[in-house]
């Protein structure tokens, strides 16, 4: 039952940046951080968005939750009851109602919790802001959510600085969950944590998804985690989605050279794996100065002249599998070996 929950339509975001030689007369060149992003997200699934720095994934997340204003485009939200509306345009009381459904968890557990509020207050804040609840009701809800996220209820009156990174992230999750959202955007939610703690939080997120039927947009740069947690994956490069496919399909059969290179670059914890790695030449491109045509062409091992001049569109090359490459059908790209390798 693939019911859509949001549909992003042609989302664009550009920043006005003062170029080095801007003057009163010359308009500064805008930096396009997001170019025509479109995809549909289904209820209950986890869509991961991966990419390197400058690809715009964090900006995309923030635009979707309206933490940042998009330059143009729509985010159609399908509420449980009622007609789908453009979340970006919602105002007033309608906005207030809808906004509870879409929440966010941030990357840095040290700056996403207000240092001068007790943990209890931090978790309760979304409820306090949106509902009128008695102290008793508030207590019950906060304690319930704290238990769900693995926090010790007796520590709730303490301040964030008393908690470790993993615990702080749990607090952030509790805060995001308390207003019963349907969609949570996790912006690199585990990247700042140690490996053993990452596993705890990822498991927690998966459990919560099962219990509460939450949809996730999981933004990350770590492909291994993405492999573990996603139903579908979108790969972004310089403000564009270059590949979008179900996770298994994409990891086994990538259709975009960038995806292939990304997967090949990840160091594998298996000393025997003799992978011939694809090492890309050159630097990660600068969004302020994007290459012509296909933005990836300077680093692409398969580039042709066409790639320099024509920008490829994101199109369906196999069932549910989209890629933005002129040669997506022809290229035989290497995926990840699904060999059962090295679990002690």
């Amino acid at each position: 039952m693939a019911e859509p929950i949001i549909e992003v339509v042609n989302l664009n975001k550009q920043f006005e940046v003062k170029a080095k030689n801007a003057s009163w007369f010359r308009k500064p060149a805008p930096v396009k951080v997001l170019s025509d992003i479109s995809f549909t997200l289904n209820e209950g699934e986890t869509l991961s968005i991966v990419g390197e720095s400058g690809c715009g994934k964090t900006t995309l997340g923030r635009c979707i939750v309206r933490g940042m204003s998009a330059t143009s485009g729509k985010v159609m939200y399908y509420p449980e009851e009622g007609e789908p509306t453009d979340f970006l345009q919602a105002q007033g009381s309608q906005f207030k109602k809808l906004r509870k459904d879409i929440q966010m968890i941030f990357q840095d557990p040290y700056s996403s919790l207000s240092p001068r509020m007790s943990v209890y207050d931090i978790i309760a804040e979304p409820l306090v802001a949106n509902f009128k609840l008695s102290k008793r009701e508030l207590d019950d809800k906060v304690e319930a959510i704290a238990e769900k996220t693995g926090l010790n209820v007796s520590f709730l009156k303490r301040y964030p600085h008393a908690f470790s990174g993993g615990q702080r992230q749990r607090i952030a999750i509790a805060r995001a969950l308390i207003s019963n959202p349907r969609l949570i955007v996790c912006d690199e939610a585990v990247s700042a944590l140690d490996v053993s703690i990452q596993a705890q939080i990822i498991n927690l997120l998966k459990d919560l998804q099962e219990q509460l039927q939450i949809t996730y947009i999981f933004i990350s740069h770590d492909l291994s985690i993405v492999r573990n947690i996603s139903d579908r994956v979108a790969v972004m490069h310089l403000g564009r989605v270059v590949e979008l496919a179900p996770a298994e399909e994409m990891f086994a059969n990538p259709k975009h050279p960038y995806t292939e290179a990304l997967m090949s670059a990840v160091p594998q914890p298996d000393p025997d794996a003799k992978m011939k790695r694809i090492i890309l030449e050159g630097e990660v491109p600068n969004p302020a100065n994007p290459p012509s045509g296909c933005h990836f062409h300077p680093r692409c091992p398969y580039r042709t002249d066409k790639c320099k001049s024509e920008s490829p569109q994101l199109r369906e090359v196999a069932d549910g599998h989209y890629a933005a490459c002129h040669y997506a059908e022809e290229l035989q790209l290497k995926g990840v070996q699904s060999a059962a390798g090295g679990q002690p």
Partner: protein
Amino acid sequence: MARSKNPNGIQGNVTMKIIPGLRKNRVQDVRSAAKQDVEYSSQWKLIYKRFKKHKLARISMIVLGLLYFGAIFAQFIAPYSLESYDSKYVNAPPMTIRFVDADGKFHIQPFVYGLKSARDPETMRKIFQSDPEVRYKLQLFVKAEPYKFLGLFKTDIHLFGVEQPGRLFMFGTDSMGRDLFSRIILGSQISLSIPLVGVGISFVLGILIGGVSGYFGGWLDSFIQRIIEIIRSFPTIPLWMALSAAIPPRIPVVTMYFYIVIILALIGWTDLARVVRGKFFSLKNEDYVLAAKISGVSDSKIIVRHLLPGFLSYLIVATTLAIPAMILGETTMSFLGLGIRSPATSWGVLLQEAQKIENVSLYPWKLIPLGSVIVAVMAFNFMGDGLRDAADPYKR
């Protein structure tokens, strides 16, 4: 800021620099009472604890406590009132309180010698010498000139005094025969209260204007910042002179007081406004502010709950450090005759006598009010430093 033993505790600055990864770890099962304290304490408690460790700041706080205590109970502590003068004892030197008399006998009750005047044969100047023949005993809770304690009730009891017809001039007298010690203590009421009131006004103005500037940004911010720069580029003394000249000559002391406070505050708010604006800018973009916005918290609640506490500690520090400037400002104005006028007095007014070279060279005790200004300014500075050190290291 590294001291030999790390006094800042587990979250201290030095430890964080050594082991950046350590920040991520906190004790779950508490192993010591010290750690338990840290975990339960709010920000303020932590700051207070750190402040307590700063020796200089603690001493300064005690000094300031004494100074303000003296200011509140000034009329009680001063042996003489502002109006009292004795033309017999003009420019008398400070008297020593003694326990042992000229014969070597020890007395439990302290006393002072009498003052006898003579004329210097060469300069024809009146000079005073202490007369060991006459002894006046020091007494506690004497009845002397009546006064209204803090304007509340009438009484005539002073903390100490000397039996009649003796005089007690601990810091000497001025050119009208007025006891300097009493005048310094009484003057402290004005010198120490004007800065507080002035800083209070600056505080409010600073938060409002700085807050608007920082939160909204854009052209409003630029506009306000330019105004601040214009105000700051005025040379202060001529500005004060101009403003003070605009004050009508014969007005009640209280009104004069407020005029001066306002003049000082109008210049002083700019510093605080800039601190507030800067802090707003940096805090506005913190993740937790965005998180609150996404949770649906209203703008005003964000400012009060998230932003304001973030820089309250900075504000307190900036305010504490703004007080010395006001002390000096009021002292300067009064010194130049632009400030407090008689019958009220402040340390600045007392220092007017020091404008004449003869006073400084012949009667150096007239510079003692300078000492009280220095002590007060330094005490506030040290306390402000201590506060800043205590509040700052919490910032990651």
